[in-house]
């Protein structure tokens, strides 16, 4: 084995990565776009209170000084008041669910409209009615729960990082090597003293290095934009991502061991990638899924990577607490490496 030969092949592979402008940008942009997309979608869908239309009012902002509405109703938190010039405009908005409740404020007793089918309208009506009832002593005892809320983003972020690593490993090793086998690059390399072991080691190391590099760049960017919170230790998290990267890369190596058909390999890649994407809890939790689905997910390395990473990031687990998942990642790596080395062929 020659370290020098591994090193030059490692360098050559890295050149390709950094010079392939299109793929290079995509590698970083893809996870960002997903995270940004979800931040926007979920930011907008967060509970934003109820919208109460009020007329007549010449402006959107309502002057409450001379209305018939009780103070208690006006000051309810999570109620947003919007002014309309007349009843017709208000009713139209109500019918289109753009407001939940409509009140006329220039009559001695207020007149109000709500949509029969709207649960929000019903809740606003209850608030409205109770605002006219004098204040009682509060019933029951209230306890405030303190603590950081875990945003969906905090839960999703490790999922996106892991998914990016998975695609990078499967395509960057599996697909690329098969393409090189097909177009004769591997044959050209076979004609040199380079051994299969040296070549594949260089591919794996290069991909691992690039995964970690990408992860760090994406992490820094996401942290600046959305302030990512890590409850546990960064060192433990790095170990988990490193093991995850190695195991996904070794799956890529196994796929790269044989084959000269790019079509077949991209099919095989999707066949592996899609189950991991949905069963390894990248996007959503498998809580409540049938037992056999959960059992199957245990076979996938991404499942263990994400479970361990989330446990550390969200719950502050230590490395010892995620050692089971780490062991699973190590075992996957070893199995895939041994199989890949046994099956490897330069030619077909």
């Amino acid at each position, binding site marked *: 084995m020659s370290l*020098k*030969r591994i*090193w*030059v*092949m490692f*360098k*050559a592979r890295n*050149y*390709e990565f950094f*010079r*392939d402008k299109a793929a290079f940008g995509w590698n970083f942009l893809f996870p960002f776009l997903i995270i940004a997309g979800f931040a926007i979608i979920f930011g907008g869908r967060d509970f934003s209170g109820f919208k109460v239309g009020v007329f007549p009012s010449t402006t959107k902002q309502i002057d409450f000084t001379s209305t018939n509405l009780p103070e208690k109703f006006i000051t309810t938190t999570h109620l947003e008041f919007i002014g309309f010039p007349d009843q017709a405009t208000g009713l139209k908005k109500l019918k289109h669910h753009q407001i939940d409740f409509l009140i006329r404020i220039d009559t001695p007793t207020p007149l109000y409209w709500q949509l029969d089918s709207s649960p929000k309208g019903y809740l606003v009506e209850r608030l409205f009615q109770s605002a006219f009832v004098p204040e009682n002593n509060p019933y029951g005892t209230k306890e405030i729960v303190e603590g950081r809320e875990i945003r969906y983003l905090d839960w999703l972020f490790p999922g996106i990082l892991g998914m990016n690593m998975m695609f990078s490993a499967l395509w960057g090793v599996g697909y690329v090597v098969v393409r*090189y086998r097909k*177009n*004769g*690059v591997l*044959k*050209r*390399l*076979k*004609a*040199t*003293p*380079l051994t299969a072991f040296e070549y594949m080691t260089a591919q794996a190391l290069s991909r691992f290095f690039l995964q970690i590099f990408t992860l760090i760049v994406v992490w820094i960017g996401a942290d600046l934009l959305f302030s990512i919170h890590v409850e546990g230790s960064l060192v433990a998290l790095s170990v988990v991502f490193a093991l995850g990267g190695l195991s996904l890369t070794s799956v890529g190596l196994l796929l790269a061991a044989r084959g000269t058909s790019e079509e077949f390999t991209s099919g095989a890649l999707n066949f592996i990638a899609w189950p991991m994407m949905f069963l390894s809890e990248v996007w959503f939790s498998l809580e409540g899924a049938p037992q056999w689905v959960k059992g199957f997910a245990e076979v996938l390395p991404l499942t263990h990577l994400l479970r361990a990473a989330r446990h550390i990031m969200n719950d502050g687990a230590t490395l010892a607490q995620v050692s089971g998942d780490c062991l699973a990642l190590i075992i996957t790596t070893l199995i895939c490496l041994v199989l890949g080395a046994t099956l490897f062929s330069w*030619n077909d």
Partner: protein
Amino acid sequence: MPPILEVKNLIKTFKTVTAVNGISFTIPPGICFGLLGPNGAGKTTALEVIEGITSPSGGEILFNGAPQTEAFREEVGIQFQHTTLLDFLTVRNTLETFRALYRDPESMEHLVETCNLAEILDHMNNKISGGQSQRLMLALALLNKPRLIFLDEPSTGLDPQARRNLWEIVRAIKEDGKTIILTTHSMDEAEYLCDEIAIMDHGTIIAQGSPPELIRRYCRGGIISLPRANITIPLSQLPLPYKEVNGRVEMTTETIDQGLKILMSKGFDLSDISVHSPDLEDVFLNLTGRKLRE
């Protein structure tokens, strides 16, 4: 001198095709040996088995009198017919990468000069012309200072100028004392570059020798052609066997010299005469009844 390469009864079968069907030859050091044959003759397959790229189905290959060892890769240089290079590397990166794979590589300067690569060193592999790419492939075959060099159709697909240019490089390599095995389906190339030729067809060698030897052995005489109008006597009275082609009469003769003497002595008008001496193309035609390029 002992042969640098001996091939004995080499066979290579793919699932249903026998691409190489028992070929044998011996190559002394320092010569350029050519495998000449039409497309599909089995040249590439034979070469790749000898290079150790694919495994033989039968037969024996001896390099310096012994089966291949680990050292083989360090001592031979290979130019493939169909290969691509790593994406996104410049010519310089490519040469440096491949040089680093060998124990004792040729100097960069020597490679660049021999293969005339100076002005494309900083171009990307995929942004160079066919001729430049072929020269780069040749440089890759030379960069471990090999004793034996395999060239698979080195000039196929090149324009005439690029082709000449490549031939000159191959000649220079030969003058350096290297042994070359090349395949080609071009008889010009074989005649120009090779000291010894094996003609291959359907996986077997059908004739072998130096170009003049082959022509002497398989071609009788030459062809003398005159315009039909030059001939005033009835064709049946011509002193040589003939056939009429496109308004000309082509006569076959034992040797060109003898044929010309006969025609002159009979007082034929020899203006607009054309004379064709047999070449390797005729050798192939006479051996197989087919042309080299179909």
